[in-house]
C-alpha cells in the first residue's frame, strides 16, 4: 500500500465538489443565475440539516449498502489510475480489469438503491436502469481493451506510458465519445438517467431525504470524478504534459472531461427506455466492434 492511497479521499471530495459546482454552472448557459463555488456546500449543509426519512418496511441492509457500494466502486476505480507518470495509488498490473469490475458492479449498486425503499417508483427506476445499464457496459469494455492494445498491458501505468508520443484520443477517435456514453450511464445523468428520472418522481432517490440523499448525491459525484479521471487516463494521456507536474495535468484533464459530461447531461434529452435499448445493441455495440478493429489495425 503506497501512501498515495491517502490522497484518494481528498481527490474524491475535491472532484465531487467540482462536479456539483459544474452542475450548477452549466445551466448558466440557459440563463440561470450563476452560483459561486460555495453553492454545492450550502446545498450539502441544507441536506445534512434535514432528517433521513424512512419508508414502509424498507430493506434496511441495502439502504446503506447501496450508496456504500457506489462510493466504494468509485474509490477503488480511482485508485488504479496513475496520478503521476509511473505512480498509481494501487499500481495494479490489471488496472483495466479492476476498473471494468467497478463499472459493471455500479449497475448492482443502483439497483439495490431502488430496491431498498419498497416503493414502486424507485423500483421501476431500478429495473429500468438495469435494462439500459447492462448493454452500455459492453461498448465500454471494448473501448478500454482497445486502449490497452498499444500498451501491450492491462496496467494503466503502461497505458499512460504508451501515450507519450500520441494520445489515444487521436489514435482511436471513436473511443472517447463511446466512453462518454458509459460516463453518463455510470453517473445517472441526462439521456441515461433512467434510474432517477422526472417521470418517476426522482426514481431511486425519490424517497430519500437529508443525509441519506446527500450520501447518494456524493456517491454519484465521486463516480463522476473516477470516470472523468479514467477517461483522461485512457484517452488524453493522463498525467503526461509539458511544464506542469503530473497530478496537475491529470486534474486539468479530469475537469475537462467532467465539464463535457455534465454539459452533455444537460443538453441531450432522454428518450423512452424502450426506444433506447435498441440503438445501444444494434448501434453502439457494432460501433465498438469497429472501433476495436480499427484500433488493432493502427496498433500493428
Amino acid at each position, binding site marked *: 500500500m503506497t501512501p498515495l492511497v491517502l490522497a484518494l479521499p481528498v481527490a474524491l471530495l475535491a472532484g465531487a465538489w467540482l462536479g456539483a459546482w459544474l452542475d450548477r454552472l*452549466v*445551466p448558466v*448557459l*440557459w*440563463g*440561470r*443565475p450563476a452560483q459561486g463555488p*460555495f453553492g454545492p*456546500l*450550502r*446545498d450539502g*449543509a*441544507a441536506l*445534512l*440539516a*434535514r*432528517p*433521513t*426519512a424512512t419508508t*414502509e*418496511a424498507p430493506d434496511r441492509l441495502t439502504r446503506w449498502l447501496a450508496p456504500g457500494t457506489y462510493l466504494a466502486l468509485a474509490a477503488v476505480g480511482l485508485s488504479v489510475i496513475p496520478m503521476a507518470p509511473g505512480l498509481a495509488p494501487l499500481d495494479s498490473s490489471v488496472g483495466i480489469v479492476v476498473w471494468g469490475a467497478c463499472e459493471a458492479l455500479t449497475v448492482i449498486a443502483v439497483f439495490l438503491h431502488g430496491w431498498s425503499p419498497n416503493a*414502486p*417508483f424507485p423500483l*421501476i427506476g431500478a*429495473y*429500468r436502469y438495469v435494462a439500459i445499464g447492462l448493454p452500455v457496459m459492453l461498448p465500454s469494455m471494448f473501448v478500454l481493451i482497445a486502449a490497452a492494445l498499444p500498451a501491450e498491458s492491462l496496467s494503466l501505468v503502461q497505458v499512460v506510458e504508451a501515450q507519450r508520443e500520441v494520445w489515444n484520443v487521436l489514435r482511436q477517435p471513436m473511443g472517447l465519445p463511446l466512453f462518454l456514453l458509459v460516463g453518463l450511464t455510470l453517473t445517472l445523468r*441526462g*439521456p441515461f*438517467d433512467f434510474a432517477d*428520472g*422526472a*417521470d*418517476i*418522481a*426522482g426514481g431511486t*432517490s*425519490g*424517497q*430519500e*431525504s*437529508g443525509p441519506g*440523499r446527500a450520501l447518494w448525491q456524493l456517491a454519484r459525484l465521486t463516480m463522476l470524478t473516477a470516470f472523468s479521471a479514467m477517461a483522461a487516463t485512457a484517452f488524453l494521456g493522463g498525467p503526461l504534459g509539458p511544464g506542469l507536474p503530473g497530478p496537475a495535468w491529470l486534474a486539468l484533464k479530469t475537469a475537462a472531461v467532467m465539464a463535457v459530461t455534465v454539459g452533455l*447531461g*444537460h*443538453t*441531450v*434529452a*432522454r*428518450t*423512452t*427506455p*424502450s*426506444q433506447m435499448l435498441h440503438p445501444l445493441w444494434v448501434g453502439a455495440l457494432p460501433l465498438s466492434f469497429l472501433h476495436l478493429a480499427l484500433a488493432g489495425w493502427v496498433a500493428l
Partner: protein
Amino acid sequence: MAVRLFHRMAARSAPAVFVCIGPRMQALVEGLFARAQSRRMESPAGAAILLVAGDIPRRAAVALDRIHDQIPPPRETVHWDGCDDPMTELLAAWARLMAGESGEPDRLPDDPPNPWKGHGDHGQGGEGMMGGVPYGRPMAMTGEDPRDGLKLDAYTMRVGPFAPMLPPGLVLELTLQGDLIASARVTEAPFPQPEDANAPRACAARLLRLLGLGPQADRLLRGTAPRSLNAVRALPVGLGAAGTGGDARTRLRGWLEGKPAEGPPPDIPRLLEGREWHEAVVLLNSWPPDTIRQAAEAAR
C-alpha cells in the same frame, strides 16, 4: 462556532419545496419556479416546505394531508393565492426550519394502512407464499399480462392528484405489471386551469422537463428557445398519434414553434393500457392540460 457556520450555510441554500397545485394555479406555479431561487422537488421526501397553491377542492383534502405528512419533519406549509410573491414567506419558513424550529405535526393518525394479521413474526403467514398482511400491507397477487400472457404480480395504485408528472388534479387508478400499465381508470379529472396553462410554451416546457432538460424548460418559460441536440427526436415516432393532430413529436415541434396543439381529446384508458410507464407519462403530457381534462371528464 462550526455549528453556527453550518446552520448559516444551510439557511443560505435555496428552499426545497414540494408544490400541491390547485385550480387556476398551474401556470403561475410553473412561472414562479422558472424565475425564483427555490427548488421544486419531485417528491415530498426531498422537500422541507409544502407550498399549497390555490384553493384545494374538498375531494383532494386527504391527498393533501398525505403529502403534508410525507415531508419529513420539521416541515412547514405556505399557502399562496397567486396574488403577491410567495418567495418572502418561503424564505422565512426555510430560515426557521434550518434554525432548528420544530415545524408542524402530522395531520393523519399514526395507523398502518391495514391491521396486521396472519401468522408468523411479520404477519406473513397465509396460504403458502401468498396471503397474510406483513407490515400492514398485503403482498401483490398474480394477474394476466396484456402483452405476453405471463401470469406475474399485478400492482394496483392510485396516482395523483398531486403527482408532479401528471396534470394537477388528475387521479388515475392503475394496475401495473412491472413498469407496464395493465389497466387504467380515471377516477378524478384534472382541476380546471385558465388558458395560460395551455400556452404552447408551457406545454413544451413540461415535456422538456420530463425528458431531463429542467434548466432548458425554465429558459423556455422565461421566453427563450431551448438549446437541445435532440429534444424533439427523443420522442418515438408515432407515439400518441391522433388523427389530424399528429403524434407527440409533431405536437412538441409545434409547441416549440409557438403553435397550439390540435386534434380531439384521447381516450385515456385505451391510451395508457399496455404502455410502459415513461411512455404513458410522456403521452399524458403531450396534450394540453385542457384537452386531458376533457378526455378525463369523458372517461370518468
